[in-house]
């Protein structure tokens, strides 16, 4: 069929690119449509044969932004996601340190209990946690959004695995120099763990930013709404005001997209790493 192996290679190479470009366009199309629509006027947005707006209506963004308290939702989300991330990093690295470097009573079964939490789907926790938070008086507070997600086994496990790969001599040498456990943790262990800490930070931040079912359950006061809950309410109240809905969707996904473009290597490596753990 082909004159030479080289011609065949070239043909297959072109075919691969055709497939990949078609796929990439499919991935991008909804985003492009979202952005284009966000600049259309109401009537253009209702006619899907119009691709480009006759005039770019920037006001859609201002109207959408002020029609619901999106600025408040934004601040709430940033605060919740950041607080969860910082606390998660803190709590999991400390716990991972204990699990990897110390010998304590009940270590084995404690680790297994934590491992078992990975198997329980979040939905099982929803109803009982609702009551627990209610008894604590935490419903409709930032505590309800932050504290339950300020620690998790995923982070502990990832860091423990990493700490265990570090040479044991490190601690022995430090101890001879009179280094305490706490000092060793802050001065030596943490500075070496930038890569796994970044992975955990990204996962926690993105997870909390996009979290929906949990905040939907534990808050019903607009003061504590996160972006996702706010956006879903906006979706219900605006109906077919597609130009406004697309503007709101755009500014809700934009921060994470920017974050992703700035740190795409870390994102992708983090995911590839968790996948190869099995």
């Amino acid at each position, binding site marked *: 069929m082909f004159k030479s192996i080289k011609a065949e290679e070239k043909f297959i*190479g072109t075919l*691969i690119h055709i497939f*990949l470009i078609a*796929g*990439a366009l*499919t*991935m*991008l199309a*909804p985003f492009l*449509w*979202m952005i284009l*629509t966000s600049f259309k006027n109401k009537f253009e947005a209702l006619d*899907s*044969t119009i691709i480009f707006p006759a005039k770019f209506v920037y006001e859609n963004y201002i109207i959408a932004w002020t029609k619901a308290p999106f600025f408040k939702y934004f601040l709430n989300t940033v605060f919740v996601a950041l607080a969860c991330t910082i606390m998660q990093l*803190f*709590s999991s690295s*400390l*716990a991972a*340190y204990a699990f990897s470097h*110390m*010998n*304590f009573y009940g270590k084995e079964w404690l680790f297994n*209990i934590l491992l078992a*939490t990975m198997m*329980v*789907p*979040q*939905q*099982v*926790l929803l*109803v*009982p*946690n*609702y*009551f*627990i938070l209610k008894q604590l008086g935490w419903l409709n507070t930032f505590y309800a959004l932050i*504290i*339950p997600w*300020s*620690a*998790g*086994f995923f982070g502990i496990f990832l860091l423990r695995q990493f700490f265990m790969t570090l040479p044991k001599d490190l601690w022995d040498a430090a101890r001879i120099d009179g280094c305490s456990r706490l000092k060793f943790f802050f001065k030596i262990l943490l500075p070496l763990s930038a890569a796994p800490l970044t992975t955990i930070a990204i996962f926690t931040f993105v997870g909390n930013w*996009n979290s*929906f*079912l949990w905040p*939907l*359950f534990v808050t019903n006061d607009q003061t504590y709404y996160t972006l*996702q809950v706010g956006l*879903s309410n906006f*979706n219900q109240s605006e109906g077919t005001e597609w130009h406004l809905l*697309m503007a709101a*969707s755009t500014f*809700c*996904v934009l921060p994470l*997209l920017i974050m992703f473009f700035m740190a*795409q290597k870390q994102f992708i490596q983090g*995911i590839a*790493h968790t*996948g190869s753990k*099995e």
Partner: protein
Amino acid sequence: MSKKSFFQRYEWSAYFYLFPALAVILTFHVLPVFYAMVISVHSGGMTNYFKNFVGLSNFEYVITNKHFWYSMWNTLYYVVGTVPVQIFLSLFIAILLNQKIKGLEMYRVIYFLPVITSVNAISIVWKYMYQKYGVLNSFIGFLTGIPGPDWLMDTTWAMPAIIIMSVWKGLGYNVIIFLAGLQNVPPSLYDAAKIDGAGRWKTFWNVTWPMISPTTFFVMIMSTISSFQVFAQVYMMTGGGPQESTTVVIYYLYQLAYVEHKMGRASALAFILFLIIFAITYLQKKFTAKRVHYN
């Protein structure tokens, strides 16, 4: 080794390091499992919840309820529609990306974009595209001349619409994982296959497929588990309709708990879902264990 006493043997300060994580995980991730069991055998209002002990009647209510079976059927439809397609497409794309092609980084970023965007925002976009006179049907009409269905308003098409959107959304994640798996296959194996005169197809089935089987297994289990928990797409795009054709299990749970305030029934349902996920994961593990090749 000298024999130490119980107190000397252990490093008791370890608990100090464990405390923050343990306090949170035990309170909000372990205790609730047992608490859920208690809730699932009681019935009552939101305030005086533990007034009536009702035994297993919440479980009985759920499994004899037709809405539960609708939701179960819809969820299975969703899982079966999503997982195999997702695996096939993402492996295919990962293999294409693994051919030392130009622009790998760019493709990887583009395919990954839907993964990090929130389901809520992107559901609104797809809902807009799925309108009867939306852009998708214009496109279908342009290509085939046949008018497309009213996706989200049609009992036949609503679930496929959610499946297509979910495959689109989750594809990039699995592409990255497969790509990492493919890159871990030692190049020497491909060289050996080449020397033996194996073509592309043969090389794939005899080298690539067995070597990445742990990755495939991981992707299969993870996407099955997460597919059983689908919620936000349904909540945002169809609200479970039309005529319950997209009411999935978690959506039904949400209705029981949040709309009807039947916390006992919702808890019972959550347990049933947990058991089902557990059983399916176990079966998958058992059936595929023989076929998964670990180094």
